[in-house]
């Protein structure tokens, strides 16, 4: 029996509405600023078989692995302790569907008479779930045993009644037990409401319709996704990112799209780290699908299980993307998870860029790594506190037609928010000296990446020193990948300033609103994921990087560069070093002649020594397809070739990746942004590929010096024929 399209539309909308409502209740009843102020929460509705049917728009990865939790419960606990109407299971185990231990999951079966007709689940970030390091993440652990304890799924609510013994066992380990307890009650309220709403549907439409609708939601979403995949070129796209945690790890994605199938192969990634940064296999899948939902399925119903029918994720056990117990996974979500997600984004954007329909969807990387202080100690009343302060924001990636947005969420969390400074200062013994957009954080390009923020804080009126975990990655190298000559967003360093003069300065009436205005006894760079202790007057300065650029920065309209200078998005030095635009700071105007000269000379520097420097004219043909503003494929009497879009120089046959046809040179990473100066300038390099004739920048990759360049292999002729 097939449900008619109208009933399907009505009930699909209603299930999404029910899912949104349960997040609403959770947020309104929570006492944790991580939830009510920053919205680090999400929920999902699952079929009885464990297929994700609807997912919320909050921090998406949080609720993209509930299928794993449901299957875990079904496989192990169906007989003992049994699964009954009104039961709710709780877990924070990343091998059972949690993203990392702080993200606690509650899932519940929805019964109708004797049968399970659906599951629902809500996950949120608890401020503390125990373990040696307050606030979680396990930065100093050597394996999972040094991180927050794992709680595999346990029945915390039995037939509608909270099990006091289980609840106590869960919150007993936490430094913030009352908050965790409150969050549990809030989710109980939310799940009860979902159950009532689903029962209303069944009463009105019947159980058969309710079940049939679930199947059809998945089938139709799958078909639409398959149609979209068929619109993209077939080929293989390779990209690799890095992760710094005591040593350097790599995550490599080989993405292959053929017909209506997408394979995301992560098997060449590094072996697992001892602790903290690894992702479990379910987290890897969740982060991959988070990118697919927001970037490919933005106009489709978000039914993740449907899309997985056409996606295969490959990984090797005991690697950093597929960690095995007892490796630690305490920060998996925002470490390897976020990185894997950004790699999927890059692959999708390159596929999109090659199509007429979707080229304006292609977006350079958003900020690929979190930057947050996890602070703990005793507050001014002597009580224990532990909190991840969600207080910084990175930038969004540039598009082919405009700059990326400043200060956005990590990709895949569209509803997230930063906390107000006042909210954090009221609840925790902390004083923020400034929080502002900071210049030169956006990756340069014809269109530049959006800006990230910089902030400084010091402990204030606490009864103890403040322990601070620098929950950051990509501190020492540019990671966010640009497109078609757009540069990567720079490294995002953090700094420790000991013995500052900020209180004295303030008392005397001057206000230290920037790093350069603070006096201090000593300063140093803080490493990714380092734990430090701060006394009042010691300052933690954190820079979060921006989004990556799109297109050659030398092609950026000089008036835009001037506007960036005037709005402090770009320093005077970067205007010249990255964009070749010379500005007179006195008059605030562009020196046109010098700008032309500097830009010419910068383009010449990109040319091979043997270059003739003479432009070859285009042959007047219409391009078969174009990639950004970099290269176009010309028919060339049946032997298609890549041409530079700026000078029409014939780069070579279209059967090759254009990156192999351009001229490559290596450039120090500190050449374009002041933030890279604090990075591993000896270890990393920018590989630039330019048109050998005119110097148009076609592609830039930030690589460890000893690592190979990444190339794509795409059947361009077939792609062109399909248009």
């Amino acid at each position, binding site marked *: 029996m097939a449900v008619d399209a109208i009933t399907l539309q009505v009930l699909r*909308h209603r299930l999404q509405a029910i899912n949104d*409502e349960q997040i609403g209740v959770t947020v309104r009843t929570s006492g944790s600023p991580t939830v009510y102020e920053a919205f680090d929460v999400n929920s999902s509705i699952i079929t009885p078989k464990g297929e994700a049917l609807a997912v919320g728009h909050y921090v998406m990865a949080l609720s993209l692995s509930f299928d794993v939790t449901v299957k875990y419960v079904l496989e192990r606990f169906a007989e003992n302790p049994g699964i009954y109407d009104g039961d709710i299971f709780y877990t924070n185990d990343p091998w059972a569907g949690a993203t990392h231990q702080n993200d606690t999951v509650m899932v519940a079966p929805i019964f109708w008479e004797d049968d399970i007709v659906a599951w629902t689940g809500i996950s949120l970030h608890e401020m503390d779930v125990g373990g040696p390091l307050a606030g979680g993440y396990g930065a100093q652990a050597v394996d999972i045993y040094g991180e927050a304890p794992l709680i595999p799924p346990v029945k915390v609510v039995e037939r509608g009644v909270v099990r006091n013994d289980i609840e106590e066992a869960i919150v007993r380990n936490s430094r913030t037990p*009352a908050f965790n307890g409150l969050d549990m009650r809030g989710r109980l*309220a939310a799940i009860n409401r979902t159950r009532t709403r689903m029962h209303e549907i069944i009463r009105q439409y019947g159980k058969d319709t309710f079940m049939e609708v679930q199947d059809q939601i998945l089938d*139709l979403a799958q078909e639409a996704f398959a149609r979209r995949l068929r619109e993209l070129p077939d080929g293989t796209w390779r990209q690799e990112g890095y992760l710094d945690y005591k040593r350097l790890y790599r995550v490599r994605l080989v993405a292959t799209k053929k017909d209506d199938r997408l394979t995301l192969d992560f098997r060449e990634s590094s072996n697992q780290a001892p602790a903290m940064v690894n992702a479990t296999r379910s987290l890897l899948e969740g982060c991959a699908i988070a990118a697919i939902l927001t970037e490919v399925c933005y106009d489709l119903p978000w039914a993740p299980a449907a899309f997985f029918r056409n996606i295969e994720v490959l990984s090797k056990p005991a690697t950093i993307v597929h960690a095995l117990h007892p490796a630690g996974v305490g920060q998996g979500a925002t470490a390897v998870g976020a990185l894997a997600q950004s790699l999927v984004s890059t692959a999708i954007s390159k596929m999109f860029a090659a199509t007429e329909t979707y080229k304006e969807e292609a977006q350079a990387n958003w900020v690929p790594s979190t930057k947050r202080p996890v602070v703990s100690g005793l507050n001014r009343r002597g009580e224990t506190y532990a909190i991840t302060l969600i207080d910084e924001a990175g930038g969004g990636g540039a598009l082919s037609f405009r700059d990326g947005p400043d200060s956005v969420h990590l990709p895949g969390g569209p*509803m997230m928010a*930063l906390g107000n400074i*006042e909210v954090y200062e009221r609840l925790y013994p902390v004083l923020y000296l400034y929080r502002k957009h900071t210049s030169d954080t956006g990756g340069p390009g014809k269109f530049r990446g959006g800006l990230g923020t910089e902030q400084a804080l010091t402990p204030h009126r606490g009864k103890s020193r403040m322990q601070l975990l620098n929950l950051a990655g990509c501190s020492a190298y540019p990671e966010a990948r640009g497109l078609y000559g757009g540069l990567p967003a720079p490294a995002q360093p953090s700094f420790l300033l000991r013995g500052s003069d900020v209180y004295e300065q303030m008392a005397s009436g001057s206000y230290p609103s920037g790093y350069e205005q603070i006096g201090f006894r000593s300063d140093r760079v803080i490493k990714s994921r380092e734990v430090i202790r701060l006394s009042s007057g010691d300052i933690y300065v954190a820079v979060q990087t921006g989004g990556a650029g799109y297109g050659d920065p030398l092609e950026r309209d000089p008036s835009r560069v001037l506007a960036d200078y005037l709005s402090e998005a770009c320093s005077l030095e970067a205007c010249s070093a990255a964009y070749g635009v010379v500005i007179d700071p006195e008059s605030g105007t562009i020196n046109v002649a010098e700008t032309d000269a500097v830009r010419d000379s910068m383009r010449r520097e990109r040319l091979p020594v043997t270059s003739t420097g003479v432009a070859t004219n285009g042959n007047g043909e219409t391009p078969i397809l174009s990639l950004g503003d970099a290269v176009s494929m010309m028919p060339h009497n049946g032997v298609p070739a890549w041409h530079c879009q700026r000078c029409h120089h014939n780069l070579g046959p279209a059967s090759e990746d254009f990156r192999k046809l351009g001229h490559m040179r290596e450039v120090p990473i500190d050449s374009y942004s002041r933030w890279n100066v604090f990075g591993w300038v000896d270890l990393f390099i920018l590989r630039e590929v330019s048109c050998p004739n005119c110097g148009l920048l076609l592609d830039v990759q930030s690589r460890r010096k000893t690592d190979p360049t990444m190339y794509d292999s795409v059947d361009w002729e077939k792609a062109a024929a399909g248009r």
Partner: protein
Amino acid sequence: MAEDGSYRVGVDIGGTFVDCVVLDADGHIASVAKSPNTPEDQSLGVMGALEAAADNLGVALRTLLSSTTGFIHGCTVGTNALLERKGAKTGLITTSGFEDTIFIGRVMQKRAGLMAEEVAHQSRLFKAEPPVVPHALIRGVAERVDAIGEVLCPLDEAGVATAVAELVDQEGAESLAISYLWSFIRPEHEQRTRQIIAQAYPNLYVASSHEVAPVLGEYERTVSAVLTAYLGPAVARYAQRLEERLSESGLSSGLLMMTCRGGLTSVDDACQNPLLTLDSGPVGGAIGGSLFSANYGEDNLICVDMGGTSFDVSLVLKGELVLETIPVVDKYTFYCPKVAIKSIGAGGGSIVSVDATGVPKVGPESAGARPGPAAYGLGGAEPTVTDVDLVLGYLNPDQVLGGKISLDKSKADKAVGRVGQEVGMTTEEMAIGAFTIVNARMADMISKLTIESGHDPREFSLLAYGGASGVHIPFLAQDLHVKSLYVPDASSVFSALGMVRGDVIHTLEHSFIAIAPFTPKERSALNGLIADLEKRVMQQFIEEGWAQDQVRISRSLFMKYRLQVHELPLAIGEQVSEEDVAALQARFEAQYEDIYGQGTGFSQVGVEVVKIRVDGNASPAAPPMGQATEQPVADATAALKGVRDAYFPSLGRFVPAEVYDGGKLRNGNVLKGPCIIERTGDTIVIPNGAQGEVDAYGTIRLDL
């Protein structure tokens, strides 16, 4: 003309039209008029609507205005100035180091107020563009207060003077906002800054964050101050121009403005607090709803307005309009207690199409008034909800809208049929499907809102107004199992009608943090604060010329579980007694579980008070609703004008439905479904199995 020559006039500016309603001394509607909106100077449109209303009455405008004792106005000047970025050139003075707070916008600025479908599209999430205050017009000054209100860094007064001079003289700021961290608990720095500005530029418009929004959260507080400074001069200029025009034309009584708070206020107050005028348009209808609730004894009422492009819902709970405190306009969230009105893109102009999964959908895109529905023949090719209503026989194909646009049913058939073909449906099947989908989306919205408030739709009655409501709401009201459905007379000018009978409302809030049960000292501090707020509210009424005994005061304590942030209001008496204190926690917990369900409370963390609010209401001498004069007659035959085939879902087919002329219906007339009532401005469909009854006020009540 009324015997004693006293009128009450309401003028409401909508998207396309200015609506005017004139009540006579007995409270009867004496005249209703519409005139095109004049966005470049809204006061012209107001005068146009007044001329038309005077014409209807058969008197000169001067005669109408000189016998008018109350003039109530709802304008969109503030909303338009914000949306079109035509406010005053505004400068912002803020704590050094936090100049970008309004741009960072807590990251969520890029999605604030968007629908779920839009939030899903990551590559299209951008901040408010352009920002209301550009980078060049923001100055940070040295000053810092901490979370317990201690001054860490004194205000740099010389720096303020320099900043002000730069902003005004070099950058050309016409208006200034001041927003410092923690100013709501320690306002001295903002107060001193205002003095410094006043010394140099005594006539400059200035908004301080601690006055506009004395609440925690620097982003929302800064936006509140900035929008106030941005909109204040525009609203003031408009109000002055309108007052001049009206007084030239003979109006001698005072002008009252409608606010988003759900009441009326003086022009001075609206100019000082222009946020009150933001998004106040749909509020007129909600006010009408709350009055309706009182007059009809319907304590719990869902008020819905389905118009051309959107479907707006507000709630009356226990006789009171439900408020929200952090509204969003054009991606800016700010602090301003406002009637909670939720909107979705579902109206007569919503477009019917096929989504990416091959399933029919309705909206959120709209064909608007131009090109409008396919049946208008103005070039619209896409089928809309109005076309669907025409295909299904609900709308009269021979009617001429607003005396100008005639409907062409064949164009509607063709457009709906074309989309049907894409999914293998006949024209009728497609129309039935689209009708079902749009009704379900509206029903989902209603459920969400009532459930959020802890109630089931079954505990409510529905009040439906707006041009498209009469056709759609009766069907979805059946599905929601509401108690009954009311469609008022003059439903298309219901907002203006609500306004004209609204109360003047002044509200003050103050934070007060104490854990229940209070100590005697806390209780006496609380009582002192309540008395003080009450005095200040009363003072405002007295300054506006009200007598003390005309003002009704109510007081609420906002309570929450400790650790939580979302609070619930509890009504309290003049003073809080010891017995009250003892009962507070239990009252709060009962209300909490009422909303979130049994067993969801968390007594062990305790409950606390966070805020007090004092509301003052005064009713302008609004005449009562006109009294019934006719004897009720059940038989409606006199109004029967014909029969038309229309589709009735519960019968699953088209059946001949009797069509009645709404203008000829009389008090007590009973109408059995299936039938159709055609009135000026709207059409009401009574479904099979339902029954409608007309009352003395022309309201049609449907029992479903």
